[in-house]
Structure formats: structure tokens, C-alpha cells
């Protein structure tokens, strides 16, 4: 079942994320995708995540689609101007890629090429608008297209942002601009998600809860300090800390499953970000009966 159909039929939607390699060796990505196959409705492919130079999202989307997995093409505004962004949306359409997740993108200095020129010609809202325009048969300049693409457009939102109101205002703008579903930043505290969903559910657009697999206490602390709007409660950090290294994947699976159980009734799906621990994703889904 495709992602769009999952939402339309009211099924609880599942997506997982893979990151393209730095280099040409796709074996790890393909192994993970094999594991996800049949278990999720879509697989996100990140676009130079954290501004680190890697193989592109579009190519990997195409390759995993060939393996029978539905890709979610992540597109950021950091590296391409409006010419290249619109062109890549047409490229995606030509390759039969329908799901597009529109993001602003991390700032260049956060990555491994801090000297790069940041683009940000468009922002995520304007990118959504551009995609909708293309669907309607014209480009941003108002020029007619020969053949229109068709997309299922996603966007992101950060439930842990403080203050939350500006995030909600932007979320609503993204919907006005054309967003048909949302994937959230990682959430580890159900009360934060509840506070967010109380407001966000008014928009009546499906929201997928973002879950990043915790790998260690150190990683959790790192996220608390460095990732905006992500808050791992002390109790979870302690749980990871007490767990010996070899048992951590199991512990992480248990925590993810627990979080999903606690929050799944508040939302329409889950987006799993295993950060290389893709082989443990089925165990999470088994544990929650999805």
C-alpha cells in the first residue's frame, strides 16, 4: 500500500528513514531497505542531512523504488535555487517518485563543508507552493508545462519547539501552501506530543510521530544539547546508561515501542529514524503490533 493510500484509507501510516552513503557503496542502504520492505508504507531518503556531503536523495529514491519500496524524496532548500528545485521535482516525477518531503534544510556551517555557499533561494513554504504550481501545470514563473507531475507532499514540524506558537503558525502556512502530511522531529516525551497534537489536530492533516532510535546515553545527551526542540527525559537517559553495550539495541527497541504505544492514538502514523540501526525496525513494529 502506498503512503497516500494508507492515509486515505485511515490506516496507521509507517515510514522509516535511510541515509545515502558518503561514497558509492549502497550495500548498507539496500540491506536496510530490504528489512523495511513490506513493513512500512514509505522510506524517506535524506537530502545531505546535517549538511554533510553524500550521494543524493533522488538517485537513492529511484534505486530503492526499483527494489519495490515506495520512496519519500526529501528535498531541502539549502543547496539548490528555484530552477534546480523545480527541475528536481520534475526529475522525481519522471522516475515515478510521488512522495516529496519539503524541508528548509540545516544551515551549511553545521556540516562537513562549512565553507559552502548557502542557497535558501526558497523556504519550505515556497517550495511546497512551487510543487503545487507544477502539479497545476505551470512553473513558478507562470510558464506552461508539457505534462504535469503529480505529488504527495509532506512537510516537517517540531513539536518540542519552545515557544510552540510560531511552529504552529508555520505548520498552518505549510498546509495552506500544499502540505498533505507531516512528519515530526523526534519526540521522547508524550506530554510534549500531547500539548502539540491538541493544537495541531485542528488542522485535520495527518501527522506522523517522529522517533529517533536512541543508541546510547551519550547520544541522548548530545541531542538534548545540540538538536533544537528535542528533549530526551532523564529517565530514558538513565535507562540507556544502565544498559550494557551489547543489550542497547534491544533496550532501544523497547523504548521506541513504549513511546509509540503511548503516543500512537494521538496521531496518524509513525516515522522511524533508526540512524543506521534499520535492522531493528521490524522488532519495534512487532512489539507494537504494527
Amino acid at each position, binding site marked *: 500500500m502506498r503512503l497516500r493510500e494508507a492515509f486515505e484509507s485511515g490506516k496507521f501510516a509507517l515510514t522509516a528513514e535511510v541515509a545515502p552513503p558518503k561514497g558509492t557503496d549502497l550495500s548498507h542502504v539496500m540491506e536496510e531497505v530490504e528489512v523495511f520492505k513490506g513493513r512500512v508504507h514509505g522510506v524517506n531518503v535524506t537530502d545531505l542531512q546535517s549538511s554533510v556531503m553524500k550521494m543524493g536523495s533522488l538517485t537513492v529514491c529511484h534505486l530503492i523504488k526499483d527494489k519495490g519500496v515506495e520512496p519519500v524524496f526529501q528535498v531541502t532548500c539549502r543547496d539548490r535555487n528555484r530552477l534546480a528545485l523545480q527541475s528536481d521535482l520534475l526529475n522525481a516525477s519522471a522516475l515515478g517518485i510521488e512522495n516529496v518531503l519539503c524541508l528548509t534544510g540545516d544551515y551549511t556551517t553545521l556540516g562537513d563543508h562549512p565553507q559552502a555557499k548557502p542557497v535558501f533561494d526558497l523556504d519550505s513554504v*515556497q517550495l511546497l507552493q512551487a510543487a503545487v504550481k507544477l502539479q497545476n501545470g505551470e512553473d513558478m514563473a507562470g510558464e506552461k508545462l508539457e505534462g504535469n507531475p503529480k505529488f504527495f507532499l509532506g512537510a516537517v514540524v*517540531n513539536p518540542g519547539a519552545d515557544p510552540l506558537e510560531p511552529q504552529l*503558525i*508555520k505548520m498552518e502556512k505549510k498546509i495552506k501552501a500544499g502540505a498533505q502530511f507531516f512528519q515530526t522531529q523526534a519526540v521522547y516525551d508524550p506530554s510534549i506530543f500531547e500539548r502539540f497534537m491538541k493544537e495541531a489536530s485542528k488542522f485535520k492533516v495527518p501527522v506522523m510521530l517522529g522517533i529517533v532510535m536512541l543508541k546510547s546515553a551519550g547520544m541522548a545527551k548530545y541531542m538534548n544539547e545540540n538538536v533544537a526542540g528535542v528533549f530526551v527525559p532523564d529517565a530514558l537517559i538513565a535507562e540507556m546508561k544502565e544498559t550494557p553495550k551489547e543489550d542497547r539495541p534491544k533496550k532501544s527497541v523497547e523504548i521506541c515501542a513504549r513511546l509509540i504505544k503511548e503516543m500512537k492514538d494521538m496521531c496518524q502514523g509513525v516515522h522511524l529514524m533508526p540512524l543506521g540501526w534499520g535492522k531493528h525496525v521490524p522488532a519495534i513494529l512487532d512489539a507494537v503490533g504494527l
Partner: protein
Amino acid sequence: MIIQEQKPFDEILQSLEGEEKIFLVGCSLCATTCQVGGEDQLKEMEGKLKEKGKTITGWIVLDPACQAVEVKKKFRERKEEIEKADSILVMACGGGAQSVRENAERIKMNKIVHPGVNTLFQGEIIRGGHFEERCSLCAECVLEQTGGICPITRCTKGLLNGPCGGSSNGKCEVDPERDCGWDLIYKRLKEIGQLEKMSELREAKDYSKLMKPRTLILEGDKK
């Protein structure tokens, strides 16, 4: 105000290699405020260059360096000292350095011109020697829509439709010391009862207006 800082002295020295006699040029406005091209700094530069075996044929603080008439007038007055020099070191912004080169050339005082400062940004003087960038000269001011706080400049990514996911507790994802421009805008709009402006969809910017080099000629000055 054009905010600028002096180039590392070693870099300046390197650019003067093979030249012995130097004429120094400063500027009475921004370069003086930024303490790179005022009288004091020119004297200091004179001393440092002399130590390295250079001869300073003279120096002048233009008022200002970016004005054609001023450069031509003062250069004619100081012709002798300038003609003696192998080159001119300009302790003023990049615009000033080019205005000096261009206008000296126009009055046939064709000299090699070296830039002595790095030009940083158009900024506000917060106090004394503390400067901050507030405007990126974007040619289409949107302050009316953003509570008088510039999203092009105060938001690191120059976003027009609100904060990115990296905004947290009023700070920007790139640096916990840096205010998130959109957090400032949000708070200001809320304070002045104009939060609805944040909900309006903003079109992508027209970058054709930023095609370089830009020129403005007022009606009365058009030929």
C-alpha cells in the same frame, strides 16, 4: 555604516612586496568609526611600515573616500607626495579603495592601489566598537510585514515565512549565542498586536533586483 576591519598586518606587508614608497589613504566616516582608517590608525600604520623599511610619502584622511569629487580634489592638492609613491594603501572599505583607484586614474594619477581592510557588512553601531548587521540591502524592504525586524538579515537562512525547525528557546540552530531572528519577529508582532502578519504567505524573493553591480541615478542627475 560600512563595518570593516584591518587586514592582518602580514598580509598587507606581503601585498606591498617590492614597493618601497607608500602613500596612505584613510576615510573620515565609516573607516574612522571602525578604527581602521582614521588619523590615529594611519599614523600607527605609518610607524609599523617604517619599521619594516618602507617610506611613507604622506597620508590623508578623505572626507569621505567613496566620493569622486573629494578624491580628485584632495589628490590634486597632494599630487607631489602621491606621485612619489610606488603605490597607495587604502585603509577604508572596498568601495573606498575602488573609488580611490578609479578617481586617481581619472586625473591621470595612475597608481597601484592596495586594500588594507576587509569590508564586512552594513551595520548598526550598538555602542563604541560594537557593530551588528541589521540590513542586507535586499532592494525590497519587508520590515513592514515583520514588525520592523529584518528576516533576511536576522534569520541566518533569510527565511520569509517563519522559523525553521532549528529555532529553540529564542536561539538559532547555528549558534546557541545567536538570537533566532524569527523568534524576535514573532515576539515583536505579538507585542504590537500584528501576529496575523506572520500567517500571511510570503512569495519567494525577486533576486533579479539584486543583479550586480547596482546603480541608482536620481531623476535630476540623468543625462
